[in-house]
């Protein structure tokens, strides 16, 4: 017990140090590098909070794809840094005091919790067997809060549409501006050739094991996205034009299948996103499989950014 506690103290100290440094560091690019380490530490924190599903998501997103986006942006905007005018000292101090107050208020909520423990765990577990799933988080995501999950996937598609819309008119439907490594047949090619198959297996495993163990469509899809981006960076596959029909179908495949299953609930069960008795698990697996693929493609394209070259 005490050893675990020491582990947690070290972890929290590290997390706060890195977070503080990210905020106060001079160069944005260095801060983005530190953010990768921050994501790694955060995944460890989620393991210690017994939220393995969240730990997997954080490991995949926080240090991986978000890190890549931030590193890319910080690098491109490097020369603008010197011109940024920092806020004056009085203002900074005032903001610091206010932020400390907000943090203290939140800390008070943590330290003096209400005497009743709010939990939905018994309700979530009560009817989980009917869904055929063994992972309670997957149960919440695909049964009780299926509507939220559907909307979340729609948000991803909308984010992609918005990112694409930010391209200049002449590049609409063109090729995303993902940098390709300068030397073909380098060690990076080797890494992509070896890592990508492993990652694809991991992505499918995440989706498959997600029904009964921690994991799921999102964690699986993120790994697939990272591997796809890696293969494109290494030059093993061309960055596709965003006007490719197949690509666009793949982006909407998952949400549309999920929506279709949801609408079928009106006919076959007792409402939107309700599953007919006995068919819950197969339907959820079908939806998750399609979503894994769509999430992989969508996140990969979000990471690749808006089109910056005309379509080939």
């Amino acid at each position: 017990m005490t050893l675990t506690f020491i582990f947690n103290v070290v972890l929290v100290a590290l997390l706060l140090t890195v977070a503080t440094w990210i905020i106060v560091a001079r160069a944005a690019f260095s801060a983005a590098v530190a953010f990768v380490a921050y994501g790694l530490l955060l995944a460890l924190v989620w393991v210690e909070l017994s939220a393995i599903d969240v730990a997997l998501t954080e490991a995949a997103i926080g240090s991986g794809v978000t890190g890549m986006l931030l590193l890319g942006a910080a690098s491109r905007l490097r020369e603008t840094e010197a011109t940024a005018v920092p806020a004056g000292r009085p203002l900074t101090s005032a903001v610091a005091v206010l932020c400390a107050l907000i943090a203290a208020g939140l800390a008070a909520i943590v330290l003096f919790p209400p005497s009743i423990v709010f939990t939905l765990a018994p309700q979530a577990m009560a009817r989980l067997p009917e869904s055929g799933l063994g992972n309670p988080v997957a149960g919440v995501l695909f049964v009780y809060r299926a509507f939220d999950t559907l909307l979340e996937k729609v948000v991803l598609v909308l984010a992609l549409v918005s990112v694409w819309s930010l391209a200049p008119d002449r590049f609409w439907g063109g090729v995303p501006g993902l940098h390709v490594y300068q030397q073909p047949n380098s060690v990076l090619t080797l890494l992509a050739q070896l890592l990508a198959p492993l990652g694809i297996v991991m992505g499918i495993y995440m989706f498959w094991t997600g029904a009964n163990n921690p994991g799921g469509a999102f964690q699986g899809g993120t790994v697939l996205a990272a591997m796809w981006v890696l293969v494109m960076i290494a030059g093993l596959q061309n960055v596709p034009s965003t006007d490719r029909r197949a690509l666009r179908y793949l982006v909407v495949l998952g949400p549309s299948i999920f929506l279709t299953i949801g609408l079928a609930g009106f006919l076959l069960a007792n409402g939107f996103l309700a599953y007919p008795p006995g068919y819950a698990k197969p339907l959820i697996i079908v939806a998750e499989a399609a979503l894994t693929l769509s999430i992989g493609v969508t996140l990969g394209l979000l990471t690749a950014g808006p089109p910056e070259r005309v379509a080939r």
Partner: protein
Amino acid sequence: MMNAITLFGLCGPALVGLGLFGLITNPQPVRKILAFNILGSGTFLLFGVIARRGAAAGLDGDPVPQALVITGIVVAFAATAMAIALLLRLFEETGRASLNSSNPNNASETTDAS
């Protein structure tokens, strides 16, 4: 008195405070996006603590807040990707990456510099 859950519970507010501070005071938009992500992770951590405290029914944590956090991480990523794309387009159009357009003097200065 102090257990691991409370420790993480105090870490969350600290991250929220730090993130908010960076979001408001740092003039560089990339750093604001970084700070926004730290602020978000602090909030998620609070949810994680609520989930851990709600351990019941043979589970180590309440799955409902955990599922909420997973949705939150996805949406935060989508927002980050969107913000970065906006920022890069702004830079491409104006040659500067500043959200401060009200000060013409400052604006011309930065355009010259880039």
